[in-house]
């Protein structure tokens, strides 16, 4: 989209739990899906977030480091190319298949 703000996928690493909690209290961060702060090394705790480029720069503090993992906007645009167009199941006779292998065995005999 023209004019869409670039969103970066970042990992924010704080010196300890208290520093991470302080950061999350001060900043409304899009922390993605599950709250998954990961520990270590030492007392460090990190969390992934999605922030504008400008905001990413502003998160850096004495006890907080920001590491850019990727350009979420560009990745999102690339993935949109991997979405089906039309309807691959428009014909009612086309039955979806899962990803498990169906394997015959003797367990249902008798």
């Amino acid at each position, binding site marked *: 989209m023209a004019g869409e703000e670039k969103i970066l996928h970042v990992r924010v690493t704080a010196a300890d739990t208290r520093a991470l909690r302080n950061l999350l209290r001060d900043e409304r961060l899009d922390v993605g899906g599950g*709250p998954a702060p990961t520990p270590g090394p030492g007392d460090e705790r990190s969390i992934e977030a999605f922030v504008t480029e400008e905001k990413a720069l502003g998160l850096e503090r004495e006890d907080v480091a920001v590491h850019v993992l990727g350009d979420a906007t560009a990745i999102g645009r690339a993935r*949109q190319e991997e979405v*089906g167009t039309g309807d*691959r*199941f428009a014909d009612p006779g086309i039955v979806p298949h899962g990803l498990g292998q169906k*394997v015959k065995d003797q367990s249902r005999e008798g």
Partner: protein
Amino acid sequence: MYLNITEVDSALVNLSGAYPSLCELIDLPETSVEGVACHALRLRADPDGGPRDCAVFIGGVHAREWGSCEILVFFAADLLEAYSTGSGLVYGGKTFTAAQVAALLEGLDIVVFPLVNPDGRQYSQTVKAMWRKNRNPEYSTGVGDCVGVDINRNYDFLFDFATAFSPLSDVRVSADPCDPQVYQGPRPFSEPETRNVRWLLDEYPRTRWFVDVHSFSEDMLHVWGDDENQSDDPDMNFQNSAFDGTRGVDGDTAYREFVPKDDLDSASGLARHFTEALEAVRGKQYTAKPAFDLYPTAGTSDDYAFSRHIVDPDKGKIHAYTIEWGTEFQPPWAEMKLIAKDVCAGLVQFCADAPSTVTD
């Protein structure tokens, strides 16, 4: 290729057509905000058998977490095809025998609702990939981030978060209609998408298990999400207003949410079985743990589903879970298929083991 919203629906319709004796297409009572009709599938072998316990699986709640819909479509397709051909299911290093598949479909009702939020998915897949909420324009200017409600904050659980939670808790919810991620809506169940999920739980009163499929963080979460768990003080609970203003603080003892030890053991045991089966596929290690970690949530589906029997003793107890698959919202499709295989193996194991956890 990922499924677009038309395809998620037509895939379900075609499954119901291909296996008429094993499944039933469910019309959800409400269309989405933008008028899209929603379907679920109920799987059961031996359809004339009596009432039985039910497991409800939902996905596609958060628009950008695309693969949740495919996971649930594949899960249903695998069970139906395996049962109807008398086969077992193999996912990488994890095998389920034909007898296990049969027992599962003959012993349980399985309800799969893969796309709760079609408007959001459509917007994410064609306009703004990072979109999360639904597309309701009603509550503010209806422009930009001021559109939409976070469906997974719109359930009736500690909805009045300003009263219920401690000001120190940084609860992950917002009353601001322009919050781009976690706007809760003006009241519980204000959104048709959320009401459809509640309708399923009401319509299938024998529901004992509920799983909401999200991404990401490679976790299998069980209750509670508002605070840490405790099993010693039944009075310290979400209904007790004496604890208003104290909830949601990490690492303290002023408030922790009560869950009876038996329930906690049962919930965490089944979550672990899910992660063990998932790991057997190709070695991915998901973590089984309570939803609360560092900061709380309010109005989520899992806490609501489990709280129903506490609020209303006439309702059945529902063990409720949230899966957070993968390490990004939209992996390349080739990677998404590997993740879907992992999660499907976990889900089959979950269904295979769930009935054995029933003690009451």
